[in-house]
């Protein structure tokens, strides 16, 4: 078969100046991410509280002079922390997540206490995973994992179609004929 099946190469990339500083990543995660994380935190937090309650109240059977105030106090403390986590951290986490898939690299910014900004060159991305757990499926979200030879980088909680678009985009932009 002749090579007419090979399309013309994409328009030669136009080089623009090297900016002094990289612009901030422009895009946020899907807003439903907050609900997703809240539900997840509630579930795992609930299990944690149950376990703590079991242990602290159960310990009363084993240890003498174990005041009920201890059990209530500890369980209450854990419950308060869990509630705080469920209420607060999804908001914070969402607020500080930014990503952008540029022609040269993927830019991932996240974290509210420890802020991290990762740049992964397009030419170094080997493949892309799209993961959906049962919770994520319920919300119509997916997380995208970019794999390099030095490990993965993840963008959580994108809408399904956006995740697919990100993946296709990376496949298009990835400059293929490179050694690692």
């Amino acid at each position, binding site marked *: 078969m002749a090579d007419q099946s090979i399309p013309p190469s994409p328009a030669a990339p136009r080089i623009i100046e090297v900016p002094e500083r990289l612009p901030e990543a422009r895009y946020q995660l899907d807003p439903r991410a907050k609900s997703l994380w809240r539900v997840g935190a509630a579930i795992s937090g609930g299990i944690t509280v149950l376990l703590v309650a079991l242990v602290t109240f159960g310990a009363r059977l084993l240890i003498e002079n174990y005041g009920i105030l201890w059990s209530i106090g500890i369980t209450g403390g854990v419950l308060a922390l869990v509630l705080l986590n469920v209420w607060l951290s999804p908001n914070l986490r969402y607020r500080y997540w930014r990503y952008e898939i540029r*022609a040269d690299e993927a830019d991932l910014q996240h974290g509210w206490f420890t802020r*991290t900004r990762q740049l992964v060159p397009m030419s170094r991305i080997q493949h892309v995973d799209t*993961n959906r757990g049962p919770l994520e499926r319920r919300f119509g979200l997916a997380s995208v994992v970019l794999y*390099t*030879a030095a*490990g993965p980088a993840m963008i959580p909680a994108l809408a399904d179609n*956006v995740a697919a678009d990100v993946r296709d985009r990376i496949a*298009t932009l990835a400059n293929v004929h490179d050694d690692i």
Partner: protein
Amino acid sequence: MPDTLPDHASQQEMASIPHPTSSAPPGIEPADGHGATSINWQRMSPKFIIVGTLRNLRGMIVPAIFVLLTSGGLSGNSVQQLIYLGIGFVITTIVGVFSLLQWQFFRYGFTDRQLVVRSGVIQKQERAVPYGRIQAINVEEAPLERLVGIVRLKVETAAGGNADVRIDALERDKAHDLREQLAAARARAQRQESGSPATAEPPASATDPTTALAASEGEVIRTLSTPKLLALGATSGRIGPAAAVAGAILQFGTELFPDSWWDRVPWERADVLTNVSVAITLLFIAALIAWLMAIGSTALAFGGFELRRSGDQLLVQHGLLDRRRSTIPIQRIQAIVVGEQLLRQPFHYADIRFESAGGSGGSEGSQGDSGVLFPFLPLREVEGLLQRAAPEFATPVDVAMTTHLPQRALRRYVYSATIGWVVFVGFLMTVHGLWADQWIDTVSWRQLALLLLAVPIFGWLGWARWRDGGWTVASPLFLLRWRGISRETMITRTERIQRRALMTDPFQRRANLATMRVSVASGGVGGHFALPHADASEAELLLARLGGPRHEIEIRKVPLEAPSTPTSP
């Protein structure tokens, strides 16, 4: 059902790069999330269910036998045996259903640019590998699979390991067919990107990298002479563990000596043993023994060190008793790290280590590795050696970095270096004061506070870390320098950097500092480098610079004809 790569109708043009937002971007059908391409999904061979069930059951055999034996199931009456049989049947059914579900939810297909595999029952995963990224396509036959006549197809990328794509059950000819299609798609993708017929493989793989070089192939770049070997041992950090061993020997050595020797010791003057000077002498002897042991073990490990080059591969051999050899394809080297150990730095001697990654090349990629390229050489000769061994990384190392750490970072470096020691001494004092003082009465817990006299040493270490930290960008090379205990300088090429990152905690943000992180590919655990408390603005500039010139790309999707390879029935 034909399983050729798909045909497309022409698709919409995308002028600039549109970017995903939460609503569907223009030009992309949201239906199955694969653009306007509809994928021809295919399943594995149903024999997977059999193999999967068997495999899972095989994992249960040992615990099952254990349970059977301990509960006397084999010798029990027939009712008991029936119960066990019933349990076994139920378990098999459950495992079988599980395998069935796995098979049900496993699908693979091709788009115009990538191979897509969907799997997962509860946690669903979709893995997409662009054709051009495929490094190796292997067809594997495990004995269990061979029993039922299927094979496993594995598609490897440079990400390696768990990140490979595996299709666990295919009929043999279908697997080979797929393999050819993928290889053709890869070749097409590579041709397309480079705009000209690509050389099929990078030249480095002309020699199969897994062929070990003969011990005397190629030319010798450098060897380690015996005096240098002894100097290496005398200044090595192995003193630490050796000292621990020596100390242990001395402490428990009393048990080893026969009683007659003990009787010879003038015990009337035994009070001399609590004398500090005797203790110091013993310590000195222990240190001397440790030092000699360090020299000895270094000589054993690094004796006869030889670095050779043959074509585009390096051969490293060393070891007196146990001769170790490793072959390193030069093209696969990702980074070079030049280390200056504490005791050698004043004499300007260094060691060279490398990080290399697994590669393509034939059907078997070589494993990535990290190791020693040369253990002991003058700092000023490093560049020369690199020019012969790894010319892409050759650069003078005995120079200062162009970008340094800011003044306000000094405080943090000194603090983090000393705080560990202070906490440790405090811990010792607490433990001693509370519990251990009935055993150890040569020193009181208060005297342990004297250990705090060592704080200035740690303070100096913190200062040295601050002073040595920095980087230099000399395109295409990037040098990063830091100090743990010894000073290290990493040399890599900007295109080898897999990922670069900036991390800040709130305290750093307040002081406009940031931690710089860079990762290269590595077979070993290494490959990740970090420099804390750099100036945030400088670090952001570095982030931008390491990315090289920025491109604007116009994406235009055009019709792509599928290759018309005849498919097997």
